[in-house]
């Protein structure tokens, strides 16, 4: 080889390494790809093919996209945070800092790997829903679903890096991610469909966080009672509108990127004198 490797080839090298490592770590692959699928089986069995609450769709038609969002978020947020903190604690990040691999390329490759795995999680979930429970996919909303996916995964990956930045060690990280993701999943139309009996303040509280917006915008693409392509700002009159949801996720994501860039550390804290 002559001359320095191009940034593109460095990115590609790192992306392949990250994906290889992911699939060699059975626990990570299980929680991102298989666990949400098991939840779909449980929910679809529990609720049968009856109509779900306010939505008027079958259990699988609600849960397949909702749990697909859960799978994507657990990959982008949960896995990314834990694997970055673990890599930092093992000294992997420090070793990388000593090589010519630019930190920005390393981070870009990690984000790309997370995005790809999140995409797999969603594809597996929707695919299983279609094959096993007759979930319907609508061609005219696919573009909006794709945009929602990209912004949502970006937002949660950035939040995952914030957790990685503030988490003192690998033991604390799963607690931080679980304590934030799990309660929100119950009030954000991920584990439980919207219901008329839920107090309004709870819905308003969940509206503050990005998870409900991700779930709503993505699930809307699978809701036959909504109309339109999804590229709209107002959901008045049963229109499928991802605009407000994408805006909230983009805002969270932007703040998260700023915080993560400021606080991120490549070495285990605290910097010791030796």
């Amino acid at each position, binding site marked *: 080889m002559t001359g320095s490797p191009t940034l593109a080839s*460095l990115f590609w090298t790192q992306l392949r390494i990250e994906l290889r490592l992911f699939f060699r770590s059975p626990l990570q692959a299980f929680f991102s790809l298989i666990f949400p699928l098991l939840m779909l089986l449980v929910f679809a069995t529990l609720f049968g093919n009856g109509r779900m609450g306010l939505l008027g769709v079958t259990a699988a038609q609600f849960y397949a996209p909702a749990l697909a969002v859960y799978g994507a978020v657990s990959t982008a947020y949960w896995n990314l945070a834990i694997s970055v903190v673990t*890599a930092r604690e093992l000294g992997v990040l420090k070793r990388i800092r000593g090589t010519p691999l630019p930190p920005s390329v390393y981070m870009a490759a990690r984000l790309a790997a997370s995005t790809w795995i999140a995409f797999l999680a969603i594809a597996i979930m929707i695919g299983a829903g279609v094959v096993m429970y007759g979930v319907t996919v609508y061609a005219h909303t696919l573009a909006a679903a794709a945009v929602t996916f990209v912004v949502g995964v970006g937002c949660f990956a950035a939040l995952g890096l914030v957790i990685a930045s503030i988490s003192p060690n690998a033991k604390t990280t799963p607690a931080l991610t679980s304590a934030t993701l799990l309660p929100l999943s119950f009030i954000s139309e991920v584990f439980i469909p919207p219901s008329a009996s839920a107090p309004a303040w709870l819905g308003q509280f969940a509206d503050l966080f990005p998870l409900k917006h991700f779930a709503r915008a993505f699930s809307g693409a699978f809701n036959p009672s909504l109309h339109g392509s999804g590229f709209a700002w107002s959901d008045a009159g049963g229109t499928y509108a991802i605009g407000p949801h994408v805006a909230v996720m983009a805002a969270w994501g932007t703040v998260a990127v700023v915080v993560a860039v400021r606080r991120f550390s490549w070495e285990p804290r605290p910097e010791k004198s030796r």
Partner: protein
Amino acid sequence: MSAVVVENLVKRYGENTAVAGVSLRIAEGEVFALLGPNGAGKTSLVEILEGHRRRTSGTVAVLGHDPEHGGRPFRERIGIVLQDGGLEEDLSVAEAVAYHASLYPRSRPTPEVIALVGLEEKARARVGTLSGGQMRRLELALGIVSDPDLIFLDEPTTGFDPAARRQAWELVRALRTFGKTIVLTTHYMDEAQHLADRIAVIARGRIVAEGTPTTLGDRHRAGAMVRFHLAAGVSPEGLPPPFAAAPTGWVEAPCGNPTAALHGLTAWATARGIELDGLSVVPPSLEDVYLRLVGEDATP
């Protein structure tokens, strides 16, 4: 031409001063050992040279770059063998080496590097299954796969068994035949003595002595320990200074001028017809010099 030039380097962590004004020069092709006890500041110093840490003040040039701002052109020319891991356990040995090779402009072939560190049989094994010594050899492989001009070896044989240690030393000697500059930190005196062209002893953030393994701390001029045994019944009366009798019969004294001291001693003994059993003259070992230099900081 100097590979490393450091002037008045200071590194503070809050109130704590880790490096308290160090100046040194390392020539190209030289094997330079930084010897010091734990906490002496050698890791801080080396990590500043590697670009891992920012200095508080002073100037540093490594291969002509300021390590803080050297970026890719700088990092492509250095190889770092870390003290404590940082390896992805789920990659195989060959994958880890090939991965590191792919980050650099000119790299040695992966099989050659694996053979160089003696890990051929483990090439397909996962990193997580390696023993401590094999792990360190893999790290050595990662440090040299990029064919660097300057190699940092941070305590390269800590945790090695004696055979692996010899092997690692052989490898370092092989590296120097390629004309590589090597900066080595260690707290093993014998390691510094075997491998280094020049040694700097660091204690409390300062370089307290610098020299070749033979001249370090004026070892070649430091005098010697003269020792002998007086048989039972022999009177020590008139024994010339600095010698003084001891109850065990063994007499021992450090002599700044061993030639004159021996002259006085042997004259005293021959005049009385006494044989000095076990008479020996021993120059200070590197270890003695080192322990004197680092004082109470020395760790056993």
